């Protein structure tokens, strides 16, 4: 077998990273807001799915239990996205970024104080349910859903919001519904990634979902390219592989990554694939259909 355990681990990590990156790109790239709180959605997904598999229904057969746990993880995260969407009706830009930061910190320090999920010691004993086929399945599902969303009417709405919110509203774009949907979908997808993450590592603690995790996702998005699905895939791949290749550097690896980010901002602020797509990603519509 060519795929040994290490390679499988890397592949699963890569797909989880790609899911996270796609999710953040929806808000930061396509809608043009700046969220630094995506680790919070991931945390909510991870914790709620772990509660399902560890506390509530540990005896169910895994084939049924795991998809249910992942879906519940995503749904919890999506519910948490609703208040953020409401706040985004009133504020934009810097202040919305701060609100997402506050949200992240509240979720993290909230989890640190709930002893039901192990408080700051972490949540132990999560079954190892994430495997390559499941991860691949969820990765493809998330990718297809996001692609269809972006090429739908709603996708055009959020891109209009990114370019000019006031003009979009004047042209009849339902900005509130569009924002609400975007936040919910994006956080749902992040929650799915969190659930996969929890059942891969079998251990989660609140500090694995801090601002550094969010920064990692940001690096992937802006490395790969904003407003680009292909870019998200590329960014997650490069980030994950680079992270492994730079292992010998030890702590200095953590200097290289942000340094790369700064260089990228200075010389290529849109990322590698910013605002472009590989052709197989695009949905081509025949105009004569209408």
């Amino acid at each position, binding site marked *: 077998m060519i795929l040994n355990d290490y390679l499988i681990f890397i592949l699963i990590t890569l797909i989880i990273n790609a899911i996270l990156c796609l999710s953040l790109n929806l808000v930061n790239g396509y809608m043009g807001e700046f969220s630094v709180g995506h680790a919070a959605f991931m945390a909510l997904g991870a914790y709620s799915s772990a509660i399902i598999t560890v506390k509530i229904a540990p005896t169910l057969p895994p084939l049924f239990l795991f998809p249910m746990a992942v879906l519940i993880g995503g749904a919890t995260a999506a519910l948490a996205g609703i208040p953020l969407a409401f706040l985004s009706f009133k504020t934009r830009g810097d*202040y919305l*970024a701060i609100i997402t930061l506050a949200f992240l910190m509240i979720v993290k*320090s909230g989890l640190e104080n709930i002893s039901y999920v192990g408080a700051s010691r972490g949540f132990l004993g999560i079954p190892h349910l994430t495997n390559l086929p499941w991860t691949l399945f969820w990765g493809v599902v998330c990718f297809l859903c996001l692609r269809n969303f972006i090429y739908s009417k709603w996708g055009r709405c959020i891109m209009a919001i990114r370019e000019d919110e006031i003009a979009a509203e004047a042209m009849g774009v339902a900005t509130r519904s569009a924002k609400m949907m975007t936040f919910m979908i994006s956080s749902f997808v992040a929650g799915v990634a969190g659930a996969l993450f929890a059942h891969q590592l079998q251990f989660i603690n609140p500090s694995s979902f801090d601002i550094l995790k969010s*920064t990692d996702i940001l690096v992937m998005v802006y490395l790969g390219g904003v407003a680009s699905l292909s870019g998200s895939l590329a960014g997650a791949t490069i980030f994950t592989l680079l992270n492994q290749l730079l292992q010998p550097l030890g702590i200095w690896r*953590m*200097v290289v990554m*942000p340094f790369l980010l*700064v260089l990228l901002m*200075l010389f290529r602020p849109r990322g590698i694939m910013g605002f472009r797509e590989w052709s197989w990603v695009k949905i081509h519509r025949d105009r004569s259909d209408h």
Partner: protein
Amino acid sequence: MDYFAQQAINALQLGSIYALIALGYSLVYGVLTMINFAHGDLFMVGAFFCFLLEKMIRVPFWLALLLTMLGTSLLGVLLELCAYRPIRHAPRVSAMITALGCGLIIENITLALSPYPRHMPTLIKNSITSFHGITISSLQLVVIGISLLLMILLDFIIRFTRFGIAMRALSSDRLMVSLLGIPANRIISMTFALGAALGGAAGLLYALSYPVISSSMGMLIGWKAFVAAVIGGIGNIRGALLGAYLLGATEIITVSLLPSTYRDLVAYSLLLLVLVFKPYGILGQPQVVRS
């Protein structure tokens, strides 16, 4: 009653340190309308710089304060020159990400060089004065006193010096100021120097008050000060002070009533609460959207 007075002094001490850092965030935001996420790490560097000074050459307190402020302000200027100036006209998001990246670089370099928390040596002889049952240590007096002194100095600089006037002009209209022949770049550099110097002083005072320093304090304390600046209304100097003392008081009250793990939860909930009702902070003005 004594208990409350005692806690009030603790809150004043913590709030003063927050205020010094928050001022740095606000000064830069006022001039460049950019959130300098790396500022918290300048505060951390200030603490480590002072630690190194004391380990290598034992210098008296005053000299350490001056040298630390000088050191961090140089770093602040360097940061602006290398990272922020080239992307000044790029989209705001790029600036924000660059700042976040620079903060992480500084933090992780410190982590790589000093992986363990360090213990700060004492610089001031700590004597405790009792006054009607309220105890004040000389350290607390020094922290509060120096903070107030620096704030008064800053107020004087902003109000009366040519630099301060240019800075205020710059924050109201950057383009016009350049047309009138004011060297905008030099003023921006000086603003960074000023903010970073205050941050460095805060780092020193923090290290003296709570003498364990680590590379993550930039994130823990610096971000908290950022919260303070936002609560007050970022870009607004008085707002930064108000927010800082408000946050200091809230944290001290939280710690005295609840387990200390609730500290962050309450601080960030306060931020969220303020932003829900006053989206631009208590004293902040709405941003004018220019195309």
